[in-house]
């Protein structure tokens, strides 16, 4: 069976339109699920149309691949914990990268056998292989860092940037060589260098810059698909690749802006030291003029509040405290207290990470507000409760021009009447700097695990009166 070229092209056009509508659905949570359905239909149409196209002569390998891959993908998606989303997307990005490399090599083998190679195609193949290979190993390193398989600390050595530059030049050399004779040696050499470059580009980037890295690799995976589209002269791949590429690029931009850092400084890496070891918590706190509070003290203030704002951070995800927060929210709302959750764009390890975790624990999205929306509300809040967040609440970003995070937009937690911070110790956040918030008169620290402390607050508030 065979569809005509025009029918196939029309099917691809419908697919592309459905992908765009799918992404557009994410404008609001109420239209998002319909958006996902649009995107799924787009994919089904594209795959079916391609399979029915006259260019396909054998189906065994294809069907087997779809069944095996589909099963693996479904099982992973069903089992994955929401806190592990950053790792999952990093892993999935690496698959797109590797698939792009394989498609480029496969295309080269097919065209070479048919004697159909030309300079334009060779150049496109070189670009496709390069982007795909960098995406593949770069995403694997990001996965390893997020999963804790390799240290999240930035790994730099002297001459690192020089080495990257030399490898880059060698890459270009191989690409020109391949462009001139279409032979296997430069293509494979180029792929090997690109694989190495992917590793070298991501290892110097610290664990806490991961929201940018995840977005950036998302973007690369899109460009890899677009490059494949150029080699195969397939417009659907080009359009989809451009959409995904821009999506990741815009997210990277938003994340960088939220940290007041340039994209370039993130890429160069080295920001954020490994977290320091344990210290005597309360002694250190007293020495440094920080007030420690008991759960009962916090419960007293919270109980008498009319509005409280909760600021979740990565610590909430690590402690899995989102369900305890939902319980806490329930008991507070029963007492007529307004509860709002304030989300900083870079809270967590990927864009929107906190929103998903709060949604998972069944907290309605109306109660969850973004930074710009919630900042004016802090002055009207009786209590701000910081759960596992640090740098994003540090007033030094506004007041201390010598601070490394100066100029970074923050949640203006210090404007609330009372601030309670649940924290395991006085360790600084990823930026390695002290949080001035903790020394303010209206701020007290509750030392302990985020989940246990939220549960203790819940018990205290439920039990009393």
């Amino acid at each position, binding site marked *: 069976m065979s569809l005509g070229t025009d029918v196939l092209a029309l099917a691809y056009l419908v697919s592309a339109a459905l992908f765009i509508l799918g992404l557009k659905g994410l404008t609001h949570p109420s239209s998002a*699920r319909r958006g996902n359905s649009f995107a799924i239909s787009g994919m089904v149409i594209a*795959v079916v149309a391609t399979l029915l196209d006259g260019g396909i002569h054998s189906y065994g390998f294809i069907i087997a691949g779809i069944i095996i891959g589909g099963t693996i993908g479904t099982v992973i998606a069903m089992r994955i914990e929401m806190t592990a989303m950053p790792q999952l997307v990093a892993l999935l990005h690496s698959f797109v990268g590797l698939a792009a490399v394989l498609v480029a090599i496969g295309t080269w083998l097919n065209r070479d056998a048919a004697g159909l190679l030309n300079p334009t195609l060779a150049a496109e193949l070189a670009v496709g292989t390069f982007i795909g290979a960098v995406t593949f190993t770069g995403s694997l390193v990001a996965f390893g860092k997020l999963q804790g398989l390799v240290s999240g600390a930035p790994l730099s050595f002297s001459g690192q940037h020089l080495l990257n530059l030399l490898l880059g030049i060698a890459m270009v050399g191989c690409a020109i060589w391949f462009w001139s004779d279409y032979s296997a040696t430069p293509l494979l050499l180029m792929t090997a260098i690109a694989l190495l470059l992917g590793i070298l580009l991501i290892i110097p980037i610290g664990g806490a810059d991961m929201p940018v890295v995840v977005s950036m690799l998302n973007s690369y995976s899109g460009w890899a*698909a677009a490059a494949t589209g150029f080699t195969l002269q397939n417009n659907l791949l080009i359009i989809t690749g451009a959409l995904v590429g821009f999506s990741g690029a815009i997210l990277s931009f938003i994340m960088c802006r939220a940290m007041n850092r340039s994209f370039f400084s993130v890429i160069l890496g080295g920001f954020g030291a490994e977290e320091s070891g344990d210290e005597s918590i309360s002694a250190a706190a007293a020495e440094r003029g920080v007030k420690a509070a008991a759960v009962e003290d916090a419960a007293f203030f919270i109980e008498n509040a009319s509005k409280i704002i909760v600021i979740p951070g990565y610590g909430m995800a690590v402690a899995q405290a989102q369900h305890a927060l939902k319980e806490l929210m329930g008991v507070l709302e029963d007492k007529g207290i307004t509860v709002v959750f304030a989300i900083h764009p870079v809270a967590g390890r990927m*864009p929107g990470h906190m929103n998903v975790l709060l949604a998972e624990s069944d907290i309605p999205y109306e109660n969850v507000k973004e930074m710009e929306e919630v900042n004016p509300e802090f002055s009207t809040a009786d209590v701000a409760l910081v759960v596992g967040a640090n740098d994003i609440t540090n007033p030094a970003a506004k007041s201390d021009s010598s601070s490394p995070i100066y100029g970074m937009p923050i949640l203006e937690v210090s404007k609330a009447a009372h601030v309670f911070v649940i924290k395991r110790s006085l360790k600084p956040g990823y930026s390695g700097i002290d949080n001035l918030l903790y020394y303010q008169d209206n701020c007290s620290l509750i030392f302990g695990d985020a989940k246990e402390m939220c549960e203790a607050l819940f018990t205290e508030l439920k039990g009393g009166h």
Partner: protein
Amino acid sequence: MSETLVALYIFALACFIGYQVIWGVTPSLHTPLIALTNAISGIIIVGAILVTGSENTSATTQWIGFIAVTLASINIFGGYFVTHRMLSMFRKKK
């Protein structure tokens, strides 16, 4: 106009659409956005199918294509499914 140039036209225009659409996505759905773009970048399966199934493909190329189809399928199924799981969690107040 050469075919490559037509492709470049399409690419440039698609970039503008991407720019417009993505800025409209609400920040609270940025994680589902990454998962969904992950799923749709599985569209590379089209390329993998063309490599695997074209006429006179050698056995080596078929194996290469098979791995690419498998990887892309993991992305498609995994990406859509996990997006669906996340989106069903976003609820309004009862």
